């Protein structure tokens, strides 16, 4: 029987009332009294020396309040990178300065050169056209292999070369892996590309700087997934503004998918400009600017080798990847291809020996950072593709081959050879659930029916595992993270019993305001509507690390549970006093405190009132008031896992792929709101299938972005996708957080690309096609069929 409220109920998303009626308050909806607008003049060449930036004519243009150039930021810090990777030889990565505004050189199309602040955006733009910029163009480094070649043009003159780091994991296993591959019965080798993506949240980035000279207070309104992190990075590392003089507000945010985690130049620009020019300053990204200034995702070139014995048992795995960093190191860029990628190379399998080499490369392209899944999709894609190819080469059914190599249910906790320990899981369970949902036995008949219509039908599966609930602070600290990754929550019980929860997690589409209220109301036995979730403002929330890596419920939710437990403990003490009973005899259930074995009881509301109107109160034992905070640092990552199946039809005449059906069986641990979880899976699948079928970021050899608008960058649309079958009933609760939850935000984007590609390759196998790089556009599929044929 489905519940109608609390944990496990599909409560309607309360935030949708404002979102769906146009009442959401996004950063661009905000306008501060006296606000000026800024326009950012960006480089239109990918690489060049910035010889001069003459702003004298522009400064006299109508409405102009002031102009900033790279010179104005020479004395402040660069945009920081939050994770130091140590290379195979024990040396720290090469870490160039990332100037807020380009100085000396421009390094990618879109690199900021000057900022004009004027009364109106049109005036700022007019003035920007009057800025005289002199650039001596240099040859651009775009291709990663070329960037690593001897004598390649350097993106950063002060670095040795374009190699950020050469990372090996697990380095001590390298020789053993080489040995095992050499002696194996069969080795399957696959070279592939994980295509570069632009996140394209519906809401472009916006930043408003508002400086109050009378108090020396700075306020930054920004489209961020983690306002406290922005306050820390910009305040402490870039501009030197102490926390108590810097408030960062991230109000309603229209999607992020990772791209709004990072501290961006524009945030520092509006903060500086507001103080310097004495007015609030607003910047709103156009969609064109988003294409050349939002951190992009993926962009790996990989060779993977899987060694097996004669029964298809995995013996060893070796993978070599070049990972594109773009021109500068974005906030979390360096950990994505390493610790969020190499540690997942075991997948759902018992492969005993694994070695993962990653070379991170600077190029004259937009910086690359985490995008929905971040490293885990790249790991899953190569693994699930090479397994499918191995199955074909070995003549073993692809599902059977996976089953033979799955970690068994009784092997948990499972220590992988790539550092992480899976606490719990049941990969056979999700695969069995998947096969219940899809009619695999009927595939042959459907394939025959397609063939009769001149179409090629294919079926593909993929398993996935991801590490979510980021992350245990001591572990990530040892791996190079420059911050802890706990979360905080404050639960404030108001005098009449309603609750305000201040969480460091940030909701930008995930539905926290609903889900988190379900958890707290369930714990306290009160109405969901009596609980309000407050987030996104450093002035209201004690601290927070924000939302990414499917961490909000597992980490932020756990902090909230801990704080609520403290509330219950204190409230029990108050109740015991009110009922003149011993604390140990007091039970709390369904919003009532009662004394065991008696008819004495006191309601939640009475206890709350007593806390704030302490006329009859144990003042000698506890303080008045009812508000508790907690920080939660997870003991381990969580490991959502699952199995996905895709069925496609390919038109051999045109190469067009149609997705006929897609099914997902996920293990997210316990589920708080099934409807919201399904929505998250649907969104993830749309983005994953978008990557597999449509999306691609293309630069030409000069570093010009050819896919700079939706005219050439193909976003998935509703009619590109089938109706999804999703299931999350085969679950194993997480063993180390209080809710037993794992996280569901990224799974869809991780598991779906290999499932789709495997299905298309299955359809084309008879034509001799063994691999096609994403996106599987009609022209690529057609070319592959013709080259193979």
């Amino acid at each position: 029987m489905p519940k109608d409220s609390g944990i496990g109920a599909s409560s309607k998303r309360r935030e949708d009332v404002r979102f769906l009626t146009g009442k959401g308050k996004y950063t661009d909806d905000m306008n501060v009294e006296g606000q000026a607008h800024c326009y950012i003049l960006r480089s239109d060449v990918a690489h060049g020396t910035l010889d001069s930036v003459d702003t004298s004519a522009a400064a006299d243009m109508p409405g102009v309040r002031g102009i900033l150039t790279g010179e104005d930021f020479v004395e402040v810090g660069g945009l920081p990178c939050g994770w130091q990777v140590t290379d195979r030889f024990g040396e720290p990565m090469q870490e160039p300065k990332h100037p807020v505004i380009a100085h000396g050189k421009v390094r990618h199309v879109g690199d900021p050169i000057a900022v004009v602040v004027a009364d109106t955006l049109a005036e700022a733009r007019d003035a920007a056209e009057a800025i005289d910029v002199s650039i001596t163009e240099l040859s651009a480094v775009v291709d990663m292999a070329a960037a690593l070649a001897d004598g390649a043009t350097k993106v950063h003159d002060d670095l040795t070369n374009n190699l950020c780091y050469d990372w090996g994991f697990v380095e001590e296993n390298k020789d053993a892996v080489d040995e095992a591959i050499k002696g194996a019965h069969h080795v399957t080798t696959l070279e592939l590309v994980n295509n570069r993506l632009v996140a394209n949240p519906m809401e472009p980035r916006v930043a408003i700087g508002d400086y109050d000279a009378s108090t020396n207070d700075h306020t930054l309104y920004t489209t961020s997934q983690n306002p406290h992190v922005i306050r820390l990075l910009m305040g402490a590392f870039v501009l030197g503004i102490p926390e108590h003089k810097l408030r960062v507000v991230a109000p309603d945010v229209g999607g992020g998918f990772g791209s709004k985690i990072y501290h961006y130049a524009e945030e520092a620009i509006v903060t500086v400009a507001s103080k310097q020019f004495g007015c609030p300053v607003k910047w709103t990204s156009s969609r064109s600017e988003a294409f050349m200034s939002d951190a992009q995702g993926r962009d790996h070139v990989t060779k993977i080798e899987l060694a097996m014995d004669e029964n298809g048992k995995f013996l060893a795995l070796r993978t070599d990847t070049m990972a594109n960093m773009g021109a500068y190191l974005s906030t979390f860029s360096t950990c994505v291809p390493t610790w969020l990628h190499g540690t997942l190379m075991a997948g759902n399998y018992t492969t005993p020996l694994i070695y993962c080499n990653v070379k991170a490369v600077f190029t004259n392209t937009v910086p690359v950072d985490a995008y929905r899944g971040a490293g885990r999709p790249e790991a899953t894609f190569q693994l699930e593709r090479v397994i499918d190819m191995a199955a074909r080469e070995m003549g073993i059914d692809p599902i059977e081959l996976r089953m033979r190599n799955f970690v068994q249910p009784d092997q948990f906790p499972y220590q992988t050879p790539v550092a992480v320990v899976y606490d719990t899981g049941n990969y056979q369970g999700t695969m069995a659930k998947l096969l219940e949902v899809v009619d695999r036995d009927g595939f042959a008949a459907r394939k025959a029916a397609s063939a009769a219509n001149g179409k090629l039908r294919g079926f593909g599966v993929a398993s996935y595992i991801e590490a979510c609930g980021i992350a245990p602070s001591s572990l990530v600290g040892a791996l190079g993270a420059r911050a802890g990754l706990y979360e905080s929550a404050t639960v404030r019980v108001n005098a009449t019993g309603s609750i305000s929860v201040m969480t460091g997690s940030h909701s930008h589409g995930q539905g926290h305001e609903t889900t988190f209220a379900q958890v707290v109301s369930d714990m306290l036995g009160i109405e969901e509507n009596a609980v309000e979730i407050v987030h996104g403002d450093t002035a209201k929330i004690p601290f927070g690390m924000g939302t990414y890596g499917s961490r909000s419920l597992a980490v932020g939710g756990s902090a909230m549970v801990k704080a609520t437990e403290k509330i219950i403990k204190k409230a029990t003490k108050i109740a015991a006093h009110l009922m003149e009973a011993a604390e140990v005899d007091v039970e709390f259930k369904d919003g009532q405190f009662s004394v065991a074995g008696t008819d004495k009881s006191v309601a939640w509301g009475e206890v709350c009132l007593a806390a704030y109107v302490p006329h009859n109160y144990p003042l000698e034992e506890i303080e008045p008031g009812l508000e508790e905070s907690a920080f939660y640092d997870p003991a381990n990552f969580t490991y959502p896992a699952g199995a996905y199946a895709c069925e496609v039809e390919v038109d051999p005449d045109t190469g067009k792929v149609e997705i006929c059906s897609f099914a997902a069986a996920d293990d997210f641990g316990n589920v708080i709101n099934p409807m919201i979880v399904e929505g998250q899976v649907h969104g993830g699948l749309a983005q994953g299938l978008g990557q597999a079928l449509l999306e691609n970021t293309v630069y030409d050899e000069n570093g010009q972005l050819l896919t700079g608008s939706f005219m050439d960058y193909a976003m998935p649309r509703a009619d590109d996708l089938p109706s999804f079958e999703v299931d999350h009933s085969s679950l194993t609760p997480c063993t180390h957080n209080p809710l037993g939850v794992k996280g569901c935000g990224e799974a869809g984007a991780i598991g779906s690309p290999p499932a789709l590609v495997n299905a298309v390759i299955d359809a084309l196998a008879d034509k001799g096609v063994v691999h096609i790089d994403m996106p599987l556009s009609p022209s690529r599929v057609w070319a592959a069929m013709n080259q193979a044929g």
Partner: protein
Amino acid sequence: MYDFELVKPSSVADAAAALGDEDAQALSGGQTLIPTMKQRLAMPSKLVSLAGIEEMQGVAVSAVGGIRIGAATTHATVAKEVAGSYPALAALADGIGDPAVRNRGTIGGSLANNDPSACYPCGTLASGATINTNKRAIAADDFFVGLFETALEEGEIITSVDFPTPSAANYQKFDQPASRFALVGVMVAKFDDGVRVAVTGASESGVFRWSEAEAALNGNFSADAVAGLSVSADGLISDMHGSADYRAHLVGVLTMRAVAAC
């Protein structure tokens, strides 16, 4: 967008007079021009809106066959109004862009712009339509000169388009995945005096007639008749969405499908 003056004449004569100014530009549905201006890639000093000119609006179906479509008629209106009289043209109009585009964009605007991947030039050329302007009547065969180039003179305004109605016709559009313009589009139209085949999206010179296919279909109007034919990849567009070879191949596939669907 730069500042500009907007005038809204109510007659073709007034519009033509307004277009006499230097840097004046005609505005119809604005589906290409407005985005271009927003990006500051075009800076007309004056826009002459054709939307309020009554004589350029609407669809008239002649009792003896043939359709006259006012140049300022939107795609959505065409899709609705010619559904019975020229279903292939209605389907073509209904497949342009999205509902917002179809409710603003006009046939005259599309023809005057002559985007090499647009649908209307293909439908117009395959139909052997006549483009009427404030100065003359231009046969479709003479109208499309090249990439974004037409026979229109400076300040000349398309007022209407006359479509003869074929006995059978079909338009096959293969979408470019991002823009959903035609990666390749082929229109086949069968008339008493012969078959016309027009191709959009494929050529670096814009829309063209595939005369070899027309000749084959005049002899035998069946998909088999064109099965062995192919256009040369020389001069075809090659970009990230498809090579010239791929486009050449699609021309053949789509022509067969269009014939089969007639």
